[in-house]
Every structure is written in structure tokens, then in C-alpha cells.
């Protein structure tokens, strides 16, 4: 099975003892380029009455800023660039796979797990920084000491939830698009394509919202 469309398998490259999924890597670069171009296009000629890309980005940025304000308070503003970039990357990445010839970088578990681990590391670092090391350790033993095992499982589950939801939704969407295209061409795949656009945005939104909610827990001084 080397020819034709294939989703879920990757062209591999080996370098310095590591294996790289080249298609994921290239699609990630393309996504990054699109995000950068989008950001530049939206901010180059800013107008008081936003039009075009500026309008689109302003809606997204304003909404995310509002969510951060509600969840984290004014302290959360520091994380705004991270959250907004994350959201834009995910939206563009999720929708990229719907264009024929491209695949989503997020249909690879390595990308989503990488993003999730990045968020979780920041969550723990911020928690130690804001609460202090003793309080950070103490919160694992709350409400009772035996809960330490459950709390640790919960922490391990966080990156799993974040990454597998996004990965599964995007991969399943692309596979179904391909299968429907073979079984019932034209009409049904078009409907599914439209739904996938929606799913891509919703999944990017859920990933970002969950990141905000995890981060907000670690931004609080006390627990």
C-alpha cells in the first residue's frame, strides 16, 4: 500500500537515531507559515472598523482574551500570546487536512501529544511558581492523604485527554472523508466536509479552553 491516499501512515525519515514523520513535519511548517501570514495580513493595515482578516482575527482574539479574563483574571494576560497562537495553529492545522493533497498536522498523535505536554509542563511550572513548592506538593494530598494516587492518575490523564481527543477527532474526520469519497462520491462527502470544518473549529476551541482551564488552576495562589 504505497500509492494513493493514505491517512494514518507517514513517510518516515531517519536522522541521528530519531525517526521523523516527514508529512507531519512539512504540514506543521505549512501551518506555521499560514498562521504567520494570517497574523501579518490581519495587522498590517489596521482600521478602526475591521474588515477581512482583521475582522476574523479580532473576533478570535477578543473572545479568547475574554475567556482568559474570566478564568484567570488579570494575571492570565501574560499567557495571552501562547493561548492565541495555540488556537490559531490548531484551527489552521485542523482545517488544512480538508484541502485535497494536504493532511492535518494534528492527525498525528506526536503533534497533539507534544502540544498537550507543552501545556502540562507550563501548568506545573506555573503552579510551583505561584503556589510555592510545598503547597504544590500538598495539593496532591488533598482532600485526604490516600487521594494522592487518584490525584496522580488525574494529572497523568490530563495530557492523554487533551491529545487523544484532538487526534482522534481529526484523524477520524479525514478517514471518513476518504471512505465516503470512495463509497458515495460528491454529495455525502461534501456534507461531511462542511461538518468537518465545524469539528475542526470546535476541537481547536475545546483544546484551547481546556488549556485555559488547566492553566487557570495553576495561576491561583492558594488552592
Amino acid at each position: 500500500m504505497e500509492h494513493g491516499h493514505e491517512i494514518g501512515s507517514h513517510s518516515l525519515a531517519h536522522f541521528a537515531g530519531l525517526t521523523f514523520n516527514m508529512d507531519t513535519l512539512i504540514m506543521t511548517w505549512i501551518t506555521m507559515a499560514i498562521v504567520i501570514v494570517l497574523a501579518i495580513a490581519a495587522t498590517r493595515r489596521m482600521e478602526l472598523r475591521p474588515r477581512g482578516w482583521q475582522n476574523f482575527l479580532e473576533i478570535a482574539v477578543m473572545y479568547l482574551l475574554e475567556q482568559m479574563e474570566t478564568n484567570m483574571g488579570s494575571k492570565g494576560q501574560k499567557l495571552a500570546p501562547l493561548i492565541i497562537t495555540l488556537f490559531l495553529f490548531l484551527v489552521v492545522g485542523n482545517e488544512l487536512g480538508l484541502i485535497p493533497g494536504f493532511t492535518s498536522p494534528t492527525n498525528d498523535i506526536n503533534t497533539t501529544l507534544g502540544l498537550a505536554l507543552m501545556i502540562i509542563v507550563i501548568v506545573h511550572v506555573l503552579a510551583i511558581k505561584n503556589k510555592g513548592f510545598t503547597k504544590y506538593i500538598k495539593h496532591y494530598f488533598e482532600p485526604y492523604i490516600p487521594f494522592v494516587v487518584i490525584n496522580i492518575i488525574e494529572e497523568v490523564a490530563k495530557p492523554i485527554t487533551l491529545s487523544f481527543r484532538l487526534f482522534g477527532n481529526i484523524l477520524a474526520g479525514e478517514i471518513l472523508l476518504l471512505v465516503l469519497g470512495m463509497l458515495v462520491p460528491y454529495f455525502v462527502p461534501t456534507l461531511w466536509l462542511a461538518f468537518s470544518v465545524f469539528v475542526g473549529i470546535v476541537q481547536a476551541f475545546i483544546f484551547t479552553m481546556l488549556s485555559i482551564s488547566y492553566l487557570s488552576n495553576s495561576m491561583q495562589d492558594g488552592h
Partner: protein
Amino acid sequence: MGKDKNTLLSAFNTAASIGFYLVSSVAAGILLGRFVDGYFSIAPWGTVWGIVLGMIAGMWSIYKKVAGGK
């Protein structure tokens, strides 16, 4: 953006993630259980207890999400 819309979106968010809390907690339990099995050579008890604790952890995180808001 109205407050209602925010509440609606966060409710949507909660509903969309609750199922995953159960599954991923069990997955994390199995993962940790297998590690404990390998480390202390007590297979299969680590995995068994990992699954049980994972289920409890899933319930616990849903309880926290629903009751505590956080």
C-alpha cells in the same frame, strides 16, 4: 459577548469532555499500573489496581468538574 453565551459554551465544553475524563483516567491508571508491574514484578496486580483506581479517579475528576466548577 453575552454571559449566556459564555455559560452555554462552557457547558458545551464540559459535556464534550466528561466522557474523555472517564476513559483517559482509566488509561492513565493502566499506564501507571503496568509501570508498577514491571518495576516491582507483581503482575497483574498493578494493572488491576491501576484500572480500579483509574475508574475512581475518573469519577472524582467528573465530581470535581460538576460540583466544584473547577
